């Protein structure tokens, strides 16, 4: 039993954000169908005579998300922050974007929120106004609007463990072992980093593998020999069976990453041709409740400020549970007991 594994199992990433392939697929399907039901109902009640639009399938949703993730990557040039900073932020998005359904939120808005919140969670604050200035036509209010939705979506697991520092560790260990030329290690280091910046974000690697496995998978894509050596080192005391098992996992993860090599990042044409019709489809079937998130957010806040509304105000209580009815009920019951 390795303490390292036991400790990883304590992380929220393992506890809340690791799934089997089948489970992840069923979650996505469930998301999709829940959203379809809700939106159908709302559209219908708004204009009962119109036919329902065609909805996105789970697979189509996923391609959309992937597209927006790729879109986001070049944005880092907008930031003064170093390369290292942006990594953290982007990685905060990965779980959310690939897990949640996006009928209800305009994806581009959500991405900005992700970036902003990512900074906050990592402890590099940027003034909201300063942050918003970096994007054309964006106000701070817009950035904040989705903050709660986002936090809730990632079940308040703010600590995303990415494979970059792990890569640094592995490289240091390889250099120390001294079995390879520095040049070879450096080359693999650079290549693995490029892979990690792209491939895990546009695949499901984060859900099915641990950061160290993802890191070794990327390293294996760059230089198989180095990974061999790392595994021998790591499992010297734990036996060949454990080593082989880990080797298999790394290879499986590698196969997943290889479907989306970093070269594809600039291959926007192909992607766009797929995305265009999907976007059109999305516009038609977006949740009418949430098109204007800023207004919705404002309404909720105002509602929260009103301590005890005399008349039940109709509200969108859906998102955060406990509607006005509860308040009324509890008040009534309280008086009864007082009597």
């Amino acid at each position: 039993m390795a303490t390292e594994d036991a400790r990883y199992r304590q992380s929220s990433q393992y506890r809340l954000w690791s799934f089997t392939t089948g489970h992840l697929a069923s979650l996505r399907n469930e998301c999709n169908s829940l959203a379809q039901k809700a939106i159908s109902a709302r559209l219908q009640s708004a204009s009962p005579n119109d036919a329902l639009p065609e909805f996105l399938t789970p697979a189509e949703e996923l391609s959309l998300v992937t597209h927006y993730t790729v879109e986001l990557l070049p944005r880092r040039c907008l930031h003064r922050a170093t390369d290292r900073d942006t990594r953290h932020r982007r990685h905060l998005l990965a779980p959310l974007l690939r897990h949640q359904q996006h009928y209800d939120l305009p994806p581009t808005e959500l991405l900005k929120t992700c970036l902003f919140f990512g900074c906050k969670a990592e402890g590099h604050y940027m003034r909201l106004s300063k942050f918003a200035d970096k994007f054309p036509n964006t106000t701070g209010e817009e950035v904040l609007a989705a903050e709660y939705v986002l936090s809730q979506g990632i079940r308040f697991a703010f600590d995303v463990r990415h494979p970059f520092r792990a890569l640094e560790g592995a490289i240091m260990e390889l250099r120390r072992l001294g079995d390879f030329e520095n040049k070879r290690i450096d080359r693999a280091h650079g290549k693995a980093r490029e892979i990690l910046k792209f491939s895990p974000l546009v695949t499901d690697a984060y859900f099915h593998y641990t950061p160290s496995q993802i890191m070794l998978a990327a390293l294996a894509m760059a230089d198989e020999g180095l990974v061999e050596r790392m595994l021998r080192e790591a499992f010297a005391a734990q036996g060949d069976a454990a080593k082989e098992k880990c080797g298999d996992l790394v290879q499986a993860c590698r196969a997943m990453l290889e479907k989306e090599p970093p070269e594809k990042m600039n291959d926007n044409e192909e992607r766009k041709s797929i995305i265009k019709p999907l976007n059109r489809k999305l516009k038609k079937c977006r949740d009418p409740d949430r098109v204007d998130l800023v207004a919705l957010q404002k309404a909720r806040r105002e509602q929260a400020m009103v301590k005890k509304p005399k008349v039940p105000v109709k509200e969108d209580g859906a998102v955060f549970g406990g509607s006005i009815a509860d308040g009324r009920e509890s008040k009534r019951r309280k008086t009864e007991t007082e009597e």
Partner: protein
Amino acid sequence: MSRKAVTSTVTQPSNAILPSDICPVCKRVRYLNTDMRFLINPECYHAMCSQCVDNIFKSGPAQCPYVSCSKTLRLRGFREAWFGDLSVEREVDIRKRVAAVFNNTQDDFETLRDFNNYLQDVEDLTFALVSGTDEERRKAEAQLVAYEEKNKADIDRNRKKGREVEAARKKREAEAEAASKARRLEEQREEEEARKEEATLNREVMEALARGEAGTAAQIQERILAHKRQRIAQLNGKHFPLPWTAAPKRTGPTEDEEDRNKPYDPFGATDLDPTRYQIRDTYENSWLDPARTRDDHRVPGYSVQEYVARAMFEAFAGLGVDIDEEKAGAQRAVGTVGAKHAAQANTTSGALRKAGDDVFG
């Protein structure tokens, strides 16, 4: 207890409670005499303050100052009461005295029935002494004195035997204590040894590699490990707790004693030492060099070593975690949020589960 002081315990049954603030004799109050103590004399159990006792009895025996009492008391007989309720104090005195005389044990009787009859008789006598009328008391007193006269030799023999039994018991306990202490020390030593053994393991492998012993690196490693593993397994099997598990339960002493006797573990049985790598003092990494030397990092204590420890941990943590396999059981055939939810709750940390908590990260 001096026998003399009680040979004639024919006192009025007393219901008095030990006074706490005012002396019933001189009426002095504690408020002005903070060191006030109350004394009693087992002749009559009438309480008075220590100053009264001094004043009245210093110059020789005198009559009890309580108007209703005609006992003659001596200074020597006065003492502090153990109980606040003086009737209890008196009963305890009487029982002690009776028990010192009727000190037979079960071994002294042929049958259990005989022993029980004897105990019944003793209790009847004691009761007469404690709560009987004057007449009953006097009769019981006479009985007690007569029995004592008649069985003097037996009583002495029993008393001696009792002392021996008591001494033997104490000796046994001391021996058990010493043995458990030795056991603890031995365990500690072995544990220490096991730790050391494991610590040197990696070093020796490295040294062998550095010496360039015959065979490939892997072969050397295998050879040394095979040898070492055996030894470690031996030690581990006995005393080395696995990481993240509590020490195995032993039978024998109660859980509480066990707990009390356990050597203190400052780390609280939590093992966070890495098993797949060791942190070295230096790693070649030109990116880190400025952090090692720049004043704004070095002087206020920024620790490159902390960064290295983290990078190494992240490189090796979770390598052996097979998500598909480990999450499969919990998430199979999950169709609804509720079920999924339950599945996730099941996979939370062991500590939480143990406490029976209903937890979702």
